[in-house]
Each structure stands twice: as C-alpha cells, then as structure tokens.
C-alpha cells in the first residue's frame, strides 16, 4: 500500500500540470500542390460598358498573396447573343479589360472567353435581366422598436413580379448622406434571405446588412409583392450640406439580378454567417466561370427616393 501512496504522490502533480497545460497548438496538415487558374470578375449594369477584372488563384496557405494578383496578358473576347462583339482592351490604370463600344442591354445574353499564357481558357455566360419598376413606396416613422427599444421606421415597397420566369432581386436602403454606409435593417418577411442565427427578427443578431436585402420570386412568382424593411431613424430624413448646399435624401435601390449573382451573393453571405463556427461545413463560393473562378453578370436597377 505504501508503494501505491508513493506512486500517487508522484503522479498527482504531473497530472495537475497536464490538466492546466495549453489546449491549443499548431498542427501540420499536408495540403496538395496548387495549380493556378484564372479568376474573372465582371459586374455590369445595363447601359454601361463592360469592365472585366482578370486575376489568378494562389495557394491556400499563403498569407499575403503575390504582389500582383491581376493578369494583364489575357485576351478577353465578348460575345452578344452568340456573336463576337468585341475583344476588350486592357486599361492598366483600372486594371480592367474594358469594352469600347459595347454596352450591356437588358434581355441579351453575353459570353466572355478569357485566354492567358500558362492558364486554361476560362469562359462565362450570363443573361441581362430587365428592370422591374416599383409600384409604390411608403415610409412609416416609428412603426416599431428593436430589442433595445430603439424606434424603427418601416420602408414598404411594392412591385409586380414578371410571370413565367424566375426573377432575382437585391435591394439596398441608403441613408441621406454624401457617402454610402453600412448599417442594419430588419424584416420578418420570409421571402428575404436571412442568414443570421437569431430568433427575433428585430434583434441585433438578426441584422440584414442594408445593401444585402436579397430575395427571389420563389414565393410570389407573377404577382404583386410588398416587402417591409425596418430601419433605424438615423439618416432617414433629407439633409442639406451646409457648405455645398447639396440635398441628400434616403433612397431605395432595387436590382434585378441574374440567378448567377443571386447564388453568388447567397454563398458570400453564407460564408460570413458561418465564419465563426468551426463545426459548420464551409461554403463554396458560387462561380459561373468554367475552368476558372469568379463571376460574370449583368444587372438592372431601379431607384426610389424615400420621403
């Protein structure tokens, strides 16, 4: 028995030392060798010229990417409804490939091909959606409160969703300011994508970023739809710049977007939603670029001032 006591006396301090030792340490995971591919980004508003950024991928374990992630030696060809319209020229100042004469037109289909030495040729196709006009916008002050008792205003807008096609929308609410800012808005409308794990639509955890109000016509295809967004009162009244005399009003901007952009934004917001959760499955960012990454899309917008 004496021996046991001696063993226990010896081992106990060791055990306690171990108990309070670090619970976190570096580990080595063998990642496969990375093969670089082209990355194509083009977000074009109808009526505008095409501006395409071409970049490249790099290894996952690199902290700071190579100095220049752009590829300036590519040949970017633009097709409209299947016909070659233009080969875009590289603008070194903007680091974009730009169309000289071609403007995006709603209803047309665009395809780009991107070829660069040392990379597989990438290509992407998108359809330019028509804008969907607003039928009515109303603005109700002090309509409700958030969880902290702060009064919220309701912005209610109505539009008619075109029938016989899937439509995708993105809305943003902007404050009356000379610059754009990011803030929280809230809604209990289930049509609006909400990625936050909060339980009450008006609590801070349920924040929808003001320029990420994303919805599709899945639940209201071909009918009139009214959406209510609640926002704090700050910045929601018109202001005049005392120096320049410029008048600023809050406004609602509604985008008609392609399915590609809708899926892309969903995955990007989804990534943000699970960033802190080590047990969630990671989200693959959507891409419509074949043999490459990124997104090529065309959109239309409608803007309504909030009064």
């Amino acid at each position, binding site marked *: 028995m004496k021996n046991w006591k001696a063993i226990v006396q010896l081992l106990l301090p060791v*055990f306690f030392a171990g108990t309070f030792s670090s619970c976190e340490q570096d580990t080595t995971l063998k990642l496969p060798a990375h093969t670089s591919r082209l990355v194509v980004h083009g977000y074009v508003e109808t009526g505008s010229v095409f501006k395409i950024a071409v*970049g*490249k991928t790099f290894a996952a374990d690199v902290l700071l990417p190579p100095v220049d*992630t752009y590829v300036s030696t590519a040949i970017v060809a633009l097709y409209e409804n299947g016909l070659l319209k233009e080969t875009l020229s590289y603008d070194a100042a903007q680091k974009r490939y730009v169309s000289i004469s071609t403007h995006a037109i709603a209803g047309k289909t665009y395809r780009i091909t991107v070829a660069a030495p040392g990379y597989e040729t990438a290509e992407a196709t998108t359809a330019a959606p028509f804008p969907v006009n607003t039928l009515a916008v109303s603005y109700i002050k002090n309509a409700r409160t958030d969880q902290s008792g702060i009064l919220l205003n309701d912005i209610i807008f109505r539009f008619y969703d075109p029938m016989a096609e899937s439509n995708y929308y993105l809305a943003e609410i902007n404050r009356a300011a000379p610059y754009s800012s990011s803030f929280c808005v809230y809604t209990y409308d289930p049509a609006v994508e909400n990625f936050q794990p909060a*339980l009450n639509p008006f*609590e801070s955890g349920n924040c929808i970023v003001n320029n990420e109000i994303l919805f599709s016509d899945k639940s209201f295809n071909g009918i009139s739809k009214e959406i209510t967004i609640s926002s704090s009162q700050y910045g929601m009244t018109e202001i005049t710049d005392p120096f320049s005399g410029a008048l600023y009003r809050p406004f609602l901007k509604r985008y008609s977007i392609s399915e590609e952009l809708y899926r892309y934004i969903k995955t990007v917001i989804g990534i943000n939603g699970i960033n802190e959760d080590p047990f969630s499955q990671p989200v693959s*960012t959507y891409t419509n670029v074949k043999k490459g990454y*990124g997104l090529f899309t065309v959109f239309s917008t409608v803007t309504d001032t909030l009064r």
Partner: protein
Amino acid sequence: MRTGKQVIIFFLLCLSRYGYGQTILSKQVRLPQQRGTVGELLAALSSIDGVSLSYSSGVISMAKRVELSGKETVVEDYLKSVLKNQPVKYMEKDGKVFIVFDERSPYKKKITISGYIVDKKSGERLIGASIYAVNKNQGTTSNSYGFFSLTLDRDSTRLVISHAGYFMQAEDMLLAEDIVLELKLEPNIIVNEIVVVNSEGRKNSQNRTLPGKINMPATMIKSLPALLGEADVLKSLQLLPGIQAGNEGTAGLNVRGGSADQNLILLDGVPVYNATHAFGLFSIFNADAVHNVEVMKSGFPASYGGRLSSVIDVQFKEGDKNRFHGEGGVGLIFSKLTLEGPLKKGKSSFLISARRTYIDLILRPILKASEGANFDLRSVMSDINLKTNFTIGKKDHLYFSFYTGVDKYSTQSEETSFYFPGLADSTLKTVTNYGFFWGNNTAMGRWNHVFSKKMFSNLTCNYTRFLFDVFTKSESKNTSRNFTSTLRQKYFSSIRDISIKYDIDYLPVPTHFIKFGSNVTLHHYRPGVSEYYQKDTIERTNIKIDNNSLFTGEYDLYAEDDIRLSDRLKINAGLRFSGFSVANKFFTSVQPRLNWLYRLNNKWSLKGSAVKMNQYIHLLTNGNLGLPTDLWLPVTKRVPPQVSYQVAGAVSYSYDKSMEASAEVYYKKLKNVIEYAEGTGFTNSFTNWEDLLQLGKGKAYGMEWMIQKKKGKLTGLLSYTLSWSKRQFDKINAGKPFPYKFDRRHEIKTAIVWQPRHNLEISADWFFASGNAISLPKGQYYNPVTATYIDIYEGRNDFRMPAYHRMDIAIKWMKQRKKFLRTWTLSVFNAYNQQNTFFLYKSNDYLNNRVKFRKVTLFPVLPSVTYQFKF
C-alpha cells in the same frame, strides 16, 4: 434414465414367468369410494390385500379427478377407469402390477414449464436467462420481463438455468403436468467479468440468433475509467466495435456510419430524444440505477423499429423486493444516491435514484467575485429516476417508471442607470434574467399478464417529452416616475410523444418463440417557437410565432418468430408494418427482417442478417455536436422518411466460455438522409426548414473484429474496425459522393480490468481512430469588387483531421466497513495527455507569410477522485 427403467421392467417381466396362476389384474375387488383423484384411487386400490401396484407420479397425473362408473369388478377394470386418458400401460409381473409410461400412447402429453427467473437476493426478474433441458437438448431464454416457457415431452429431465453474473443452477424435474415456477438464481458477486455478454445469458456467442446484438451490464460500465470519474453508459458503448464517438468527449454515438439521430435510445422502453447533459459531455443515465444496456447494430428483430442504425435499450433496475439497500457517491461533477427496497416484501419494490451536479455551487462565488455582488448564477444539472413494481397474483405484474432530467443555466444581474441623465429621480433599476434549459421527462406504465403457460402479454403506456428553452427577461423600473419597461424573449422547441404498445410473446413449442404486437404513438412537434414581448408606456411588440407546430401519428404492427430449424440452424424471421400520418399525408412501410445462425460445432458459428429499417423523424443539426438546439422534425411530403437496408454476416469462435472472438462484415444503404444546403445552418421560426435542406443518400460498409477474455483476474476486450461511410447529394459537392463527417477508416479499442485482489481493481482503456473528415480550402483568390480573399473548396470532407488516440486509467480500492462497502476510485482521463483535435482553425503566421492551422483540444489529462458507498 428411461432406458434404465426399461431394463428393470424387462428384468421384472422375466421374473414374472415364475408367478402364480391367478393374476392380480383379474382379482375381484371393491373400492369403497366412487370418485377421487387418480392418486387417491390408486392408493385405495393398493391398500386392498393382495393388490400390489407400482407407479410414479412422474408419469401419471395424480391430481386429476376421476369418477368411476360403478361397473368395475376386477383390478383391471378399476385401472382402466382410473388411468383413462393417461399415457401409461400396466403389466403384472412377480406379484405386482407395474404402471409405466407408454411411448405409443395416444394420450402422451406435452408438458409446459413456465414462470419467471429471478435474482435470489433482490427478487428482480432476470432478462435473457437461459433454461436448458439437458436430456431433451432443448431450451429457451427468459424474455424482457424474466418470463419463460418451455414445452417438453412428459418425462423427467434436468433443467439447467444460467445467467451471466449468477451461479448456474440445475434442477431435476418430473414432467407429469404443466409446471409454473419461479427459478431463483444466486448472484455470483466474486467473479468480476468485464464481458460484453449477450442477452442469452450463459450461452456463448455461437447461440445468438441476432448478429450485432450485444449486452453491456452495469458492472462493466462502472468498471471502466470515466471522464471526471462519472461512469457513463453511452460513452462505455463507444468501446464496442462499430460504435463511434462523434466529437471528442461527447456522448454522441455514430453506429456503423449512421448519424446520431438514427439511434433509438430507450429508457426503460421509452424513447428519449436528447440523452445528454452539459452539451453532450455526460449521458443522462445514472449508472448506479442502470441494470443492463442492450445494443443492436444490425439484425434488428421486427419488434424494434423507428430508427435506422441502432437500438440502445437502457433498462433500469427494478428495485430489491426482499431488502432495503442503497448506494451513492461523491465525485467531481455529480453526487448521487440510489435507494431501493421492498414496498411489500417479495411482492413489490421501489427504486429511487437522484443525481445532481454541484458545479454551480463552486462557480457561483467565483462569478460573484468577478462580476459583482449583483450577479447570480443559477445552474443545475440533475436526474431523478423513480421505479416501482407490483406483483398482483400469479399472472399479473405492474411497473411504473418516471424520469426527469434537466440542464439549467441561468444568470440574474442587476444594474442601475439614469434614464434621464441629470435628473435625480430618474434612477432606473434593471433586473435581467438570461438563461436556457433543456431536459427530458418520461413516464411509463406497464402491465405484464400471463395469459397461459405459453402466452405472455405486455401492455405499455409511454410519455416522453424533450424541451429546449432559451429566455431573456429584462425589467426596468423607476418608482418615482412610475415608469416600467419590460422585455421578454423566449425561444423554445419541444417534442412530446404519447404512445401505447401491446406485445405478446407466444411459445407454442421449444422450436418457436413468436412475438407479435402493435404500437401507436402520437407526436407533437413544436420546433423553433419564438415569443417576443416589449412594453413601456405602451405595448410595443407582442409576437408569438409557432409556424411549424405539428401533430403526427405513428402506427406499427409486427410479428416475428425465433425458429429452431435444427440443432445447428436457427432463424429469426419477422415483418414490421409501419404508417405515419402527417399533414394529410400517410406514409407506409413494410420492413422484412431476417436473421440466421448456423452452429458449425461447439466452438464455431456463422451468423447473418438482412433488414430494412424506416425512420419518420429527422434531426436538423449544425456541426453534429448533439446540441440541444438541434431540431427534431417529422417527415413531410418534401422530406420523406429515411430508409436503410443492411446486410451483415459474422463468424464467431468461443473457447471454454472464457474467450470469445468474432468478425462481422456489414453493408448498409441509406436513403433520404438530410443535410443543410451549402451556406445555411440554422432555422428559426420564420424560415421554412424544408427550404434549407438537401435530400440525399448514403452507404456504409466495413468489417469489425473483436476478441474478449471473459474470465479470470484479467478480463478485457480488443476490437478493430475497418469502415467506410459516404453521403451523396445532388446539390452538394457537385453531386459527387463524399466521406461522411465521422467516416473513420480505422478504429482500435481495448479495455482491460485487472483484479489482483478482491479489494483492488485496476482498469484501462485505449482508443485509436483515424481522423474525422473535414473540408479545407485548396486555394484562394482575390475578389477586386468586394476587396476580399475567397477560399476555394473543391470537395467536401476531402481532408482528414489528425488521428485520435487516448488512454484512460482507473484504480479502485474497495473496503468492506461494518455497515457498508466503500470504494475510492482514482481515474485519469487521457492519461498521457494526448492533444486530440476538437476543431481546427486558420491562423496567420506573418513571419513566414503562411496561413497555418491551429488545433483546439478539449481535454488534457484529467485526474479525478470519486468516493462511492454501498450498503
């Protein structure tokens, strides 16, 4: 025995050649009485001068009442009347009439021995005890309530009754008429067996009809080392091949590539939906109150259904019918006490068991010191089990069982602020309560009734409820201005079942054990109910959202037969029909089940099974952590029932009943399994959860080896599992199959218990498992529009975490005090302080311009001391 009798009779017959001319049978006699039992009339006949009879109650039904016709004149007439319809013949030899068994008699009768097998000391009924008629080579086992029935030819026989942990008992019996008895087995408290024994008691693994079915007695659970010294039922099961722990340290179980929701966990026959405390660290089963745990991984008989991957049936003790006693303990996490004893000696008993953590008592002063005097922690983690049973006559038995368990973590804080700054009377005192709790309540009433010696029935009424609740309540008051502001938020989810089940066991002959029955369950699902209320001068908000609340009905019918086709071949064949009604939709399923066993010889046997299982419930889980926030949801038109098909085959070897080895292969196909669509991971009251899901399929296959040493001072087991588990969804991983999160290629597990002296026990276990499958980025790129770096994932779960391994050790010192037995246990969890990965995260190494991975470990080496007593 019978041959011996025949030799004697033959010998006597030979002697009779030298007898007298007048026979006894033709002797004129007159009996004074005209009626009586066979025994009385034969005795009366024997008492007549010159009439000598030889007979045995072993072959004659002596108690049978007989009425004579009055026409009898000679002894033979009397014997014909008295022994009418008895399987005997008589012959006169050497001045004596011998009445002997007639093999050819049309009245040869089958005799049924039935009754209960009980623990001699406690009176508790024993499940799965073996009863074997030696000279008949026939036997049976007691059912889940200790009842047995064995029908044999009228004869004498030796019955051998055995059960693991009890001394074997043999009884010589004369089988003249049906026998009802209570067989009492003496517990063998000397031998400490760390054995994974099967439900068929003494029989070794060769005689099990059901592959993949194993029993784990409470003694084994309590012998193994445990996290913080708290013996844990579910974690002990993780030692068995094919049963994997989910995440490190949790009591989650993944059986043969299945998910945690695919386990039917029964507490005294009542399903429980979240069987864990402390976010999965401990199971809700208090090992002191547990009698036995039965696990099925494959070969499910038709009497079980409702889940795809396993049945884990945790049976609590019934309570000692003969004497009052108890046990308890004080550990680092829980203190507990279990009391049991007779309500009416030999007839009824009770068991009450309670367990409570006192971590809150330790944390409360610490938090008060750090957060201030106005902060209060109110947390508790507890279980209470209550069980009673009553014997009512010879044919009826009633059981009542209740369980309540809760995890509650709440805080209360007070703060003072100024509502209108600068005004002296604007002091605003705010009291905020925040907390969450979850728990299970179960209640069960059961009526056992013996219809006949061959038919046993069981009527069970169950209630089970699982509730998870998060709440915030804040109240601000300014008394001088008569201002009050109230904010209440509540989110809860619950599932509530009421069910009634009727089972019948019918044992017509020893070669058939037929079971049939039905079950009706009403489920009430309330996933993700939100309430929000705010009021100050006016009511600002009052919302209650209960969009997904749903009542459903589940209906089952089953029949199965355990058939002994020959001495070597046994099969269990059954069929289960189930239906599920939900929102004007009725799902049905027919599930055939077949298990077979072929005994090659006394040491080797082959087993196999083919089963279809159906599951009408889904678990929405994020991260597979087994958190109470996971939502149980019924099937719908869009999310149909999960289905599995499993085939398994096994070979087992037994040596001298002390060593056992087995190898088992399985292949399982899963249909309609669910997964969150990419980028979604939580549902609330406002979202339609069906929109968030992807429906897919899966498959799992592998091979399991296990070797056990069951007797001696050193006992233990060693197992190895080689397995694959995959999932496939149309819109995940580009439609390609990918490894399931808990797909672990290799698993090695071992446990040993060494008892060098009767008062000292040393045990250890060791686990090794390939790392969990995880998804890691294979590249990255810069998005110039959003100015962000985006990771590229090409395949789901295409990387592996580092392998997991751990050793636990426990040493027990027992000492018999004057009035009680005390045990000190020193246990060390993760004895060599292996830093096993709980999860990985990315970290920046600026010096080398690299992203590196850091692993977070949950449990370093954790020593603990537990004091236990038993009186």
